[in-house]
Structure formats: C-alpha cells, structure tokens
C-alpha cells in the first residue's frame, strides 16, 4: 500500500536514486577508460606526442591539484595555463581565485590550503633564503632554494626558460642607460613594499658598495599597473617592475642595464606540495616539466599584452595558448 506519506518520501528520494545511477555510470566510465580510452587515443593521433595519456585513468584518483596564482595578471595567466594543462592531462584540478603575493602563496602551500604555485625563482630566494647570494645564474639560485622549499613540505620542479626579471625602468627621455648612471640624477623611485627590504632591490641600489644611489624619495606603490601609471605621469622618475610589462613598449619606457648585477634570475618554476607530487608518482613531475620547457619569455610578454593592454580574461588567453600549442 502506498500511503500519501510514503509516496512523498519516494518522490523526495527519487532524485537521489537518479543521482546515484549517474554517479555509478560515471564511475564505470572512468574504470573503462583504461581499456578503451577514446579521448586520449584521439589526443595521441593529434600533433602532440602526449606521452602521459596512457595512465590518465589511474591518475584521476589522486588528490585534487589546487593551483593558485598571485594577484597580478601575469601570475594569474600562468596559473591558468598550468591548471588547464593539467586538467586536459586528466588530473583533478581546481584553479583558485588569485590572491595575495608570494608570502601568502608560500604560506598557503606550507599550510595545505592549496598545493601548486608557479613562482619566480629569484623571488622565492628573497623570501625563503634571504641571506643567500643573489645570482643571475638560475642553477645557482635553484641550489640555494631547494632545501628551504623542502622545509615547507614542497618540491621545486624544473624551471622554465621563461624569465620575468625585475627591471629598473625609466621614462624614454632619461639620460641614463645603466643603473649606475642614475646615481647623480636625484631620482624619485617607485616600487612595491617588498622592494624596500630586499638586497636584490632597494637595499642593493642604495648600498654604497654596489650602486650607492641616493634617491630623492621612495614611493611605495602596489605592484602592478599603478607603477607604470606613476612613471608615465611623472609622479616618480624610476620604477622597479618586471621586464615583461607590455607598458614598457606602449609608453616608450626604457629598461636600464643592471650593470652591477643585483637583479637575480627570475625563471618561472612550479612549486608543488611533496605529498601531492608523490601521490601521482613521477608522471606529474614529468608532465609539469614538459609544460615548463615549452613556455618562453615571449609568451609571457604576449600574455601580458593580451590581459593588460587589451583587457582580455586570463583564462581565455591561457586556453588559446594551450590550443595553439596543441596541449588542449
């Protein structure tokens, strides 16, 4: 006998049952994909060799890879590129909304809030091994940061040839051509709060043993387009920004030669929670290294032009690049 009450219960439970069936179906699809794998066969047919595809089905079982960028457009696009790439490779991925800067991201990985970040190796050195000597040689920097990164429970993977170096930038009409030339010019310097406490930045610029520049003033500005605007509008005479900023070409700025070599190598490199890395075995590291090797400095500049000058969304820019490279 179905009383009205039981009928109501059945009606309530029906969607759950359907949901269960769907989930079960999805589950069996996943299991079956090891045998049939129509999607990855297709990928293997396409231009990319895609060595990792054979094991896609197994890898989907690991922990979700949560990637987060820092809160400026280049980092957001990089996080989208890595996140979408891993997703296409069959990993469970969550691309988090970008927030904060390096310290927040390193803390987040250490605390397990997320598990993958892509950072600039020179910046990581300034944060985790501030006493180590800065170097323009990427391998020397990697040697100094490998252990501190392990200490926060993470692993540094291969760095990319793509470099977003710090740059000392002046307006095009400046008479200086090297940073040393700035010493007598009584410039106002604009840079982020981080710069003030770094030997690779303000401390090195003012150090009498290195550049020995005396600035007329130091203006703290949020890292980002505000720096370019301040320079363009004569609020400051020089800024420390990144050399992949598209505003440099657009506004006719000049990057001064770092003749005493205080700016470290700033190749991008993934830093991933060791726990997550080990859960997937060597395949994940191989996949990430493969992607890192494909990104170039010109790509970074192209992405920044899209996002900062043409105001396009980072995720679209990332998708287009991955498609152009045959990675999606």
């Amino acid at each position: 006998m179905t009383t009205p009450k039981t009928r109501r219960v059945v009606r309530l439970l029906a969607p759950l049952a359907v949901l269960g069936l769907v989930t079960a179906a999805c589950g069996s699809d996943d299991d079956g994909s090891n045998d049939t794998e129509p999607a990855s066969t297709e990928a293997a047919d396409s231009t990319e060799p895609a060595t990792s595809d054979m094991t896609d089905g197994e890898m989907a079982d690991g922990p979700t890879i949560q990637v987060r960028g820092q809160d400026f457009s280049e980092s957001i696009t990089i996080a989208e590129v890595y996140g979408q790439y891993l997703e296409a490779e069959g990993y469970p991925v969550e691309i988090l909304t970008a927030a904060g800067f390096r310290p927040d991201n390193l803390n987040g990985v250490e605390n397990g809030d997320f598990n993958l970040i892509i950072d600039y190796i020179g910046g990581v050195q300034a944060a985790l091994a501030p006493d180590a000597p800065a170097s323009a040689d990427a391998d020397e920097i990697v040697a100094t940061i490998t252990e501190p990164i392990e200490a926060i429970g993470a692993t540094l993977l291969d760095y990319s040839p793509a470099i977003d170096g710090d740059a000392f930038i002046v307006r095009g009409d400046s008479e200086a051509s090297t940073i040393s030339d700035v010493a007598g010019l009584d410039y106002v310097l604009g840079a982020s709060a981080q710069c003030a406490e770094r030997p690779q930045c303000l401390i090195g610029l003012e150090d009498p043993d290195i550049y020995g520049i005396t600035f007329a003033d130091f203006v703290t500005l949020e890292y980002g387009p505000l720096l370019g605007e301040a320079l363009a509008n004569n609020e400051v005479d020089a800024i420390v920004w990144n050399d992949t900023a598209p505003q440099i070409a657009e506004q006719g700025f000049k990057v001064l030669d770092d003749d005493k070599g205080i700016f470290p190598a700033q190749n991008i490199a993934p830093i991933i929670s060791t726990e997550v890395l080990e859960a997937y075995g060597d395949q994940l590291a191989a996949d990430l290294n493969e992607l890192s090797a494909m990104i170039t400095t010109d790509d970074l500049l192209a992405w920044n032009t899209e996002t900062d000058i043409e105001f396009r969304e980072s995720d679209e820019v990332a998708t287009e690049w991955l498609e152009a490279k045959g990675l999606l």
Partner: protein
Amino acid sequence: MIGAMAAARPSQTAVPRDIGFFEWFFDPDTWTGPDGILASLVDTVVLCAAVTLVAVAVSVPTAALLAHLRRAEVSSTWLVSISRAVPTFAIAALLVPWSLERGWGFEPWPIFIALFLLAVVPIYLNTYTAIRQQPEGTVEAARALGYSERSILTKVEFALASSLILAGIRVAAIQVVATEPIRAFLGGDGLGRYVRDGFGQNNNTLVIGGIVLIGGLAALTGLTFVALERLVLPNGVRRLARQQGDKTP
C-alpha cells in the same frame, strides 16, 4: 653620510620580520621621524578632518533646508544612498588615473572624493530625517509666535534635531577614519601604510600595528564626538533626550 641619508629616506617602513609587536610599538624610533607613526597619524587625521568638515558643510545646510521645505524627500535620499552602493575603494581607484593624467598626483583628490561620498550619506540622511520628523505642532507653535521661516529652521527645528545630526556626523567621521587606510594602497601614506607594508613584507607585526592604530584612532574619534555632544548640544535637548531614556549624553 650615505647611511644617514638612507635612514632619512621617507615613505617606507622596513623593520626586522621577527620583531615582536611590543618591541616595535614601544620603540621611540617607531614613532618619530618622517617615517614614524606620528607623521602618519598627522597625515591621516588631517585628511579625515578635512573630509568630514567639507561633508558637513555641504550636507547639513542642504539637507536641513530641503527638509524644512519638505522638498526632494525621496529623490535626494535616493540619490545620496545610491552613491553608497559603489565601494569606496573602487571610486578612489578609478579616480587615480584621472588625477595622474591631470598632474594632480596620487593625493589628495582621489581619496578625498571617495571618502567625501562615504561621509555625505549618514550626515545627509540623519539631518534630513531629524528635521523632517520634528512634531508639526512645535513648528506651528513657533510660526504662531511670529518666528520667521529662517528662525523656525535654525532656532526650533535645527536645535531640536541637533542630537541626531551630531550622531550622523559621528558615524560619518568614524567610517571615514576606518576607511582612510585604503589610500596606502593607492599611492598614498597615512596609517594604512603599516598594513600595506606588513602584507608586502610578510610581517605580521606591522599588520597588527596598523590595525591597532587605525582601530584606536576610530575609537578615539567616537569618544571625541561624545565629548563634543556634551559641549555643543543645547541643555534642553540633552535633558529631553535623557527623559526619553535616550543614551545620548
């Protein structure tokens, strides 16, 4: 010599990352000099006071007059309130490029205008409502006694409404003080710099120091208005408020 000049470098806070809060806060060097808390405090107080004064000068007479004439009750209230729907930070950030292009610099206009729009809302609304809601009989009685319209507004309505008007100004001033630190993120300084530099340098001592200072100043602003209310409110209004069980002093 160069070292000394570097020490006199303005507009930047760099302290050891592992310094304790009390060690930092009670170090005299933290408070003095062009970089010190006192200089930042003056920056903040001057801007906040200027914003609040201009907001009062603009909103109180306008609202009082419109309320007395019973004009624009819905439209003006709506217009004022809607400006509150846009975040103050967004207004200030949008105004920065505009100000830079005109050669006016980062400060003070973008942050001034944004804070002004923030302050106008409670002052205008409180003034309008307070005067609009004075009992009809009181106003008619004043009119019967031969008061001119101007005297009715200033000596009767305004006097009776003064407690609520001051409360609106107090709310505005506290909001302005608590919001002013966003200027540090838009090329300015003031007390917000400690929060900004603390975030940038991963130094919690500075962040906490900034919060304590901003919170302290906001609390002090509230207390100042309590004292001000004691000083400027007409005795009769204060007595009336007490009788009605109001907490106003």
